[in-house]
């Protein structure tokens, strides 16, 4: 496992060097993809035949939901790596990514709720998809709370990693809730085995915005990981004094 090339960046100094080299490009890519995707989505894409202009909320809601699931899945993988290999960076990643994931989950829930009011006539329903997304938000909150609960980063990291791995069971529930249960939330129209059922005039801006959200995640992740690594350095310096 240690022969994987990616693990050579598990050294904080090498990781920080890599971040420094790529940060400007990532900021540029975030601005380009978000501007183009959101402009196309809000001004150039067609109205939906049923939802009208309300469909434009989808260009923010759907990429946020994808990011929320993707970030939690990556935290679960990093938690496994941390528990098995004890890589400091895996723990730093989990701690840094948690707030970003929680923010994307909150955006997905709130924008979905704003979309639901004019479409369904209500801000909230205890629907399987929506409720499981709320559970994901609480999992993120729990994960962040555990990290802040103890000064001992090893113990809190291990406890948070366990919660992240156990909570991963919620991810397939969120994804397949619309297939397993009769929900008010519409079924998947992009990520499905038979291919997307959404027209390319809407699909392309959606995918471009999703890429913009992904680059935004990397930008904020680098800032937060640098901050956490600096905090570790402060703790080590204070300990040796």
């Amino acid at each position: 496992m240690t022969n994987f090339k990616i693990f050579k960046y598990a050294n904080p100094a090498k990781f920080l060097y890599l971040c420094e080299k790529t940060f400007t490009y990532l900021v540029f890519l975030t601005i380009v993809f978000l501007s183009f995707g959101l402009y196309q989505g809000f001004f150039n894409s067609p109205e939906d035949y049923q939802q009208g202009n309300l469909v434009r909320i989808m260009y923010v809601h759907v990429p946020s939901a994808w990011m929320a699931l993707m970030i939690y899945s990556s935290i679960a993988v990093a938690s496994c790596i941390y528990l098995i290999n004890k890589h400091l960076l895996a723990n730093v990643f989990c701690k840094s990514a948690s707030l970003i994931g929680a923010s994307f989950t909150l955006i997905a829930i709130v924008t979905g709720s704003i979309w639901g009011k004019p479409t369904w006539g209500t801000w909230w329903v205890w629907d399987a998809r929506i409720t499981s997304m709320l559970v994901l938000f609480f999992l993120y909150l729990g994960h962040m709370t555990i990290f802040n609960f103890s000064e001992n980063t090893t113990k809190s990291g291990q406890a948070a990693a366990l919660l992240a791995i156990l909570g991963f069971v919620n991810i397939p529930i969120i994804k397949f809730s619309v297939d397993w249960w009769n929900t008010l939330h519409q079924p998947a129209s992009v990520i499905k085995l038979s291919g997307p059922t959404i027209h390319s005039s809407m699909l392309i801006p959606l995918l471009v915005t999703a890429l913009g959200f992904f680059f935004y995640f990397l930008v904020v992740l680098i800032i937060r990981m640098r901050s956490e690594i600096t905090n570790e350095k402060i703790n080590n310096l204070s300990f040796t004094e």
Partner: protein
Amino acid sequence: MIDNLFYIISASFFALFIMILLIVISLTSLKKREKIFNKISKNRKNN
């Protein structure tokens, strides 16, 4: 006049607000920690 403009603007601004707030919080935290780290490093060098 675009229908449901209030809902579209509310959702977009909420997302934008959270994303900008997250960057501001993260950058503030980084700057604060780097300042503390530089201060401790400087003190250690002087000692």
